[in-house]
């Protein structure tokens, strides 16, 4: 009887020690779920979700504080991916958060006064310029977040939808009638 109790206790202690040691040794830094969510988000850093960037939104979703339908730049597909990742039902966008066509900002260089306010607002450093010098958008890096629009005192920034050209053109989904129409 005593031997059995001692044996069981010894096993419990050893296993407990192993678990305790592994918890320290194999500790995962950060929140892996938030990382996965962040990987799905489009990284426009636009703040349309109400959080100051994609990473804070990912953290909020991971902590169960935010819904998955708050990211218009991600589109319906982004919701699908988040739903799949989190194992929940996809939800439609709210009426105030509808996806827009992908755009890049454009600075009208004749109007720009070189105030640097947009440079300070750009979350991805996609505007180059200096005080009292004309500013310009680095189109390849612009995420189309529109955060540079409100600070501009002379309204010289506009959003231009990305036009289809030979390099970004995609084959369309084939549409055909299953039966000839008469």
């Amino acid at each position: 009887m005593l031997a059995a109790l001692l044996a069981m206790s010894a096993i419990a202690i050893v296993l407990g020690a192993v678990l305790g040691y592994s918890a320290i040794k194999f500790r995962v830094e950060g929140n892996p779920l938030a990382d996965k969510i962040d990987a799905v988000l489009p990284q426009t850093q636009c703040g349309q979700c109400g959080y100051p960037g994609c990473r804070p939104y990912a953290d909020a979703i991971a902590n169960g504080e935010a819904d998955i339908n708050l990211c218009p730049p991600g589109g319906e597909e982004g919701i699908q991916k988040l739903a799949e990742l989190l194992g929940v039902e996809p939800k439609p966008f709210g009426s105030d958060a509808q996806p827009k066509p992908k755009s890049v900002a454009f600075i009208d260089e004749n109007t720009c006064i070189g105030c640097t306010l947009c440079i300070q607002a750009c979350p991805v450093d996609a505007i180059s310029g200096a005080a009292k010098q004309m500013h310009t958008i680095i189109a390849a890096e612009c995420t189309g977040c529109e955060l540079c629009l409100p600070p501009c005192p002379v309204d010289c920034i506009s959003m231009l939808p990305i036009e289809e050209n030979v390099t970004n053109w995609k084959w369309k989904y084939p549409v055909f009638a299953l039966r000839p129409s008469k």
Partner: protein
Amino acid sequence: MSALFKFNGGVHPPTHKAESTTTPIAVLPLPTRLVVPFRQHAGDAATPIVKPGDHVLKGQLIGEPQGFVSSAVHAPTSGFIESIGPHPVAHPSGLPDICAVLIPDGKETWIEKVAVDYRNTPVAELRDHLRISGIVGLGGATFPSDIKLRPLRGHSIQNIEVLILNGAECEPYITCDDMLMRERATEVVRGGEILRFMLGAGKVLIGIEDNKPEAIAAMRAAVAAGNLPFEVVSIPTLYPSGSAKQLIRVLTGREVPSGQLPTDIGVQCFNVATAYSVARCFEQGEPMLSRIVTVTGNVTQPRNYEVLLGTPIADLLAHSQPKTDTRGYLMGGPMMGTPLPSTDVPLVKASNCFIAISDALFPAPPATLPCIRCGRCAEACPADLQPMDLYWFARAKDFGKTQSYHLFDCIECGACAYVCPSHIPLVQYYRFAKSEIRAREQDKLAADRARERHEYREFRMEREKREKEEKLRAKERAAQAAKPATSDEAPTASDAAAEARRKIQDALAQAKAQSAEAQPRNTENLTPEQQADIAEIEARRARIRELAKSDVEAPKE
């Protein structure tokens, strides 16, 4: 004669090659206007280096390669650049692309042509020469040839054992390679020898389908005349044996593994027309300016033409006289070609064939029916895929699944759609899925870059804040350190203050003395009335001063 191997599937569509091989290759007269696109190759468009109004010579470089996968573009004839800008091109989208419009001066003045002695030139220089000469694969993919001759993925180029020259030309209607081999076999073989030399390959196999006996005979004669250890292999006619991977399988029995390149198994493959261009490039010093193209289908005079790149298709078609019931044109063959958006577009390096379409030759396909999962497409697929599953996943937009079913091993040959009893346009689904997946990969890359930039910005702002705080703290520390110092040096400081005060007093005294010495000039030689006035004013001012003094000082007391 080495033993031949087989690949799975394949189809036997009617070849329709006899129509366009009855007459020799014709050289098209100089058109009145050429439109030269800067993107005639796989990869990035060339950068224009000429301006509107410039006079260019035949063979002059007008577009420099930009990026790793890119190639050069040259003026196909001498003349003036009219404009540079977007122009409709032969692209399935019908969208315009950047082109140079060249008005020929009719003189055909060449640049100075420099032949290259390839045997005594480093291979790296030869590759650069191919790149700047705009040599790209003419089989249809227009992949820059210099990259195919480069050691990639850690392989040394010496690993290439077999060079294959692809003269299979398996697609129906197209005969441009056939006619090239018949008429210019010597140069094709010489080009093959240059490519063999650059790769250091030991063996050269020239694969030609057995429905081209004249081409096989001409090539064998050229090989014998050149006394080269090449082997011209007649392969069974079976679509798509002209696809690089399938031809490699047929000739060597080796299979290119999924996601790998032929060089990974020691084989490299070039089209015969590419070999011909390579020979012209090194022996004559001519960059790629023209190509041989088949015009066939619903035309009165089907034949092959040697045409300058940039020639408007309408000019070319006019020489073959399309019949009145023509309802459109295909660029490429009937299996893999795409409809031309208009005949206003220019001929490019990828244009191997133009087919006039009529209802009689190409009847509208019967209505599409649902997939019955008969599996005939899988039997026909030369890439050993399961087209019915790929179709299913592409239709459901389940792109992850299409990739796990190896969608990117699909060569879009169309054999599956050809045998499909339900007439489903399968290849369209695969193209759709492939371009969606590519777009997603691009988006993913852009998102990763944006994340990195955003994180760096946050880091930078944090760092700036920290630095500012540190500076502030350092200032405070300095101020604190300065305080006890002032009490220590108090006597000297007060000495300095006393010194300063004395200096100021001295200066004031000096100023007073000066003003006392200086007599105002307007006070001399005055009349008695004026002096009386002055005395009166002075008295008044003195009174006011007294009043002011008492007023100001009164509240003080």
